[in-house]
């Protein structure tokens, strides 16, 4: 490989890693709270790839772009209502919504703040991260887990830009471990339920997009890290 080709490959890799950091950040934002007017405008003005090679991602993009094509004055309210319906629901049975917390899916009695939360909290702390005071939910909320992966992706980019490939590989390995042990285990269960509870194509689309992106990213990390 010539130096020029290596540089091009490195630039492409940096671009790909930046792209995955941005996608994790956007997904995190969409799960963290309801869509606001500024974000809705930006989402409406965005382009959504038709064919990415992952059918789940393609379906997610199609559903979201279709929903946004019906935008009107009440869209923000509709989305806010659907966000509440999907992630909060009503009643106390523990079965009334697609609860966005890992502990719910990983504890026998579907409880919040269980071992899974303690584990991810330890990982965040080990990575030097601490939540803002404004975040009042458990640390195993999917928005935080996605944001954590966005942070690790940014660090990998930073390391690559500094030509520190060992550090970049370590961050990617941490991302892979986190996906393997946490997010990829329970996010598919969450998204199946999101598809059932959601009444808008936006949140149905978000479920598909999440599945597709996590699947693609897991494979990408396996390729980059040479994991069989």
């Amino acid at each position, binding site marked *: 490989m010539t130096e020029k080709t290596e540089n091009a490959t490195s630039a492409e890799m940096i671009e790909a890693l930046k792209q995955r950091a*941005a*996608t994790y*950040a*956007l997904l995190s934002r969409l799960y*963290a709270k309801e869509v606001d007017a500024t*974000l809705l405008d*930006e*989402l409406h*003005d*965005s*382009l*959504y*790839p038709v064919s990415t090679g992952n059918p789940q991602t393609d379906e997610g993009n199609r559903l979201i772009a*279709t*929903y946004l*094509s019906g*935008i*009107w*004055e*009440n869209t923000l*309210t509709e989305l806010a209502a659907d966000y509440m319906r999907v992630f909060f629901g*009503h*009643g*106390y*049975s523990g*079965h*009334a*919504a*697609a609860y966005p917390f890992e502990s719910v899916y*990983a*504890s*026998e009695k*579907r409880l919040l703040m269980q071992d899974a939360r303690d*584990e991810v909290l*330890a990982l965040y702390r*080990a*990575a*030097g*991260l*601490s*939540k*803002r005071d*404004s*975040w009042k939910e458990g640390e195993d909320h999917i928005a935080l887990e996605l*944001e954590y992966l966005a*942070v690790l992706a940014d*660090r990998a980019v930073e*390391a690559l830009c*500094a030509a520190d490939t*060992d550090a970049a590989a*370590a*961050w990617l390995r*941490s991302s892979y*471990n*986190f996906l393997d042990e*946490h997010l990829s*285990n329970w996010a598919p*269960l969450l998204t199946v*339920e999101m598809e059932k509870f959601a009444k808008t194509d936006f949140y149905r689309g978000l479920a598909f*997009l999440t599945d597709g992106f996590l699947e693609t990213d897991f494979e990408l990390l396996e390729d980059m890290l040479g994991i069989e």
Partner: protein
Amino acid sequence: MSTNIDLGQFDFSFDPALDTWAVGDPADRELDSSDLFLPNDEGRTEFLPPDPDRVPVIENTVKQDAPGYADRPPEERTRELFGQMNPHRATLLGMLRAAETPLATKAVADALADIPGHKFSVYTPSNFCTMLEVAGALERVNEAGEPYAAAAPEPDIVEVDGVQFWRPTTPPEVFWLTTDAGRAMLADDDPAARAERLFAKEPEFLPVYKRVLTLMDAPEGTTMGLMSVAVDTDPAVKESRRFYVQHFVESLERAGAAAWTEGAWRITEAGRAALEMLADVVDDYEIPAVEMVADVPTTTDGVSW
């Protein structure tokens, strides 16, 4: 998704000031919770899915999603909506009146603000439109009043550098028009008949209704506090132990005889007609001076006092 969204605007959950992890020595940095924790099987199980079949059902709700709902006559569904939304009756009727000619969605908020008696509500202007639409009292039309093109929203496909993308489109503006069922509801709205029914239901309190309407008929309107002095001190009300002033005000409001406008409770045109109905009623209760009654608030937001 494409990446032209400004991620800088997001307020993320991790505190960037505490992101102290410096890129340097990667040797200890591979994070794996299996290294951080001893095996712990207590309280753990396989990943469990939720069970939507166990979602509690609220009884006696109108199931607008049910297949048969849309097949029921719109007049019946509209009456049902007005029954459920009784506190918002004035608003719903005002909406139907405002949409007798095509009303742009962006003009709905102004139309609502002009409705006498419209209250602050968790419902947005568009929520009211949607409720009336689902009930069959409003329909979506274009600016000319023709049926709104009901085609399902569909994004465009554009090609950028040889790659195809979905690009969300913007649908034509929605206007609202009152349907036949909505017009029938307007025609059936008869505040005089509602006031008559109210007075027939509570004949023992006709003097109280007359007193309250008279207070509201003042040019500056009145407050809940002043009406309380006039009503809650009356032995006929006190001894009944059933009602307080709010009951009478709310009943008159729902009958269309009273409205909270411009910071005061005021009589409406229908209320003046109702007051005339009570012309022969003798109200000989002497309202005590405000100073004689403890804790009468001088200001009110119409509800709290």
